């Protein structure tokens, strides 16, 4: 498979040890980006620790271990949980964005069914989709679609695309997810019925920190990192992401090579 050689070597040494930070009197310069890596790693660590206390406390409260939660407080605790999870996702996105920027994204491939990955991604989106009043039906392939990928990383890419589609869907809308294979490529197509991406915005969709207002007064704040990370994750698997958009029909397509020696199932 094209590009696998480099990827396999990355798998064996996914994230080489960092050089030590420069010290006074040491003439050896720090490697490019080392201070940014160290900064992001430190920030991530320092944010995860208080998030552990916040999310853990909320979980204990929800469990009823420390007393029954009055029904009127349940939505408030759920709101706090959702927003803590958003913060955690942002921390994870920042770490991934830095790894992508510095070419240090780790990808550990194995043979899996793309359908299983997509089902996992849909499961992960059930709660936010339910809150947004959006259904996410799956149109599966007729059989397995074998791919040699890092399941966690590719699921993350599908989740990011799905989350974007849910975010820009109208309440009561649907985001249809199709898995199939054609021309040696395994494909995931995510189709939403939202307002579409304006022509002027299309060139920026994958830009880091770029966000757009859905224009209907909904609070749709996000880091603007998700689609760019998704594209980098797919490209790390020798794949590609493309999209078409018009009002009521926006389709993002993820394509990755079918596992060598397989054809995969057409729909």
């Amino acid at each position, binding site marked *: 498979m094209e590009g696998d050689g480099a990827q396999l070597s990355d798998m064996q040494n*996914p*994230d*080489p*040890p*960092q050089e030590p930070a420069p010290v006074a009197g040491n003439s050896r310069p720090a490697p490019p980006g080392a201070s940014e890596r160290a900064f992001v*790693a430190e920030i*991530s*660590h320092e944010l*995860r*620790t*208080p*998030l*552990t*206390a916040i*999310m*853990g*406390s909320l*979980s*204990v409260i929800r*469990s009823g*271990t*420390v007393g029954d939660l009055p029904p009127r407080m349940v939505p408030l605790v759920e709101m706090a949980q959702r927003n803590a999870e958003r913060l*955690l996702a942002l921390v*994870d996105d920042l*770490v991934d964005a830095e790894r992508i920027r510095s070419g240090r994204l*780790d990808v550990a491939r194995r043979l899996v069914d793309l359908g299983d990955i997509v089902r996992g991604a849909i499961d992960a989106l059930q709660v936010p989709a339910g809150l947004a009043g959006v259904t996410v039906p799956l149109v599966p392939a007729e059989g397995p679609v074998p791919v040699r990928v890092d399941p966690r990383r590719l699921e993350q890419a599908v989740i990011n695309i799905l989350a974007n589609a849910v975010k820009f869907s109208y309440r009561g809308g649907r985001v249809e997810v199709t898995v199939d294979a054609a021309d040696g490529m395994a494909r995931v197509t995510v189709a939403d019925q939202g307002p579409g991406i304006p022509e002027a915005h299309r060139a920026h969709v994958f830009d880091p920190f770029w966000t757009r207002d859905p224009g209907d007064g909904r609070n749709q704040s996000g880091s603007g990192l998700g689609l760019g990370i998704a594209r980098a994750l797919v490209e790390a698997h020798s794949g590609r992401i493309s999209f078409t958009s018009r009002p009521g029909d926006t389709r993002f397509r993820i394509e990755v090579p079918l596992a060598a020696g397989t054809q995969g199932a057409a729909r």
Partner: protein
Amino acid sequence: MTAAQSERAADRSAGGGRPLRVLCVDDDPDIRTLVEIGLGAAGGFMLCLCSSGGEALAAAEAFDPDLALLDLRMPGIDGLELRRRLEARPGRDRCRVIFLTAATKAPELAQLAAGGAEIITKPFDPMSLAGRIRAAVE
């Protein structure tokens, strides 16, 4: 809080059998509280909470843990060094170690995994901690 003061029975279950003795070491008091609540709610655990490696080494002799739950990054004696010193004690083969860490660096985690260490990354759910610990010792 000294180790002796923080040692307490978290076994609130009426079931029989010797409770699993867990030595939890984390410099963050909030994390220790979550561990205490999570294992206390599950029952079947005796817990010794320590805020530093030095405190843990002093407590380990009397407490004789079945399992140590160690924060990886602590001032003074860090989690890796603490595991080494705990394992250097007589009878160390009885004590399993699980690291708690907020680290996301792949080399750091890979190094731990390569050494056969169990890892729980932060954030973790205190209400599922007991199950993860039991799975690790079985």
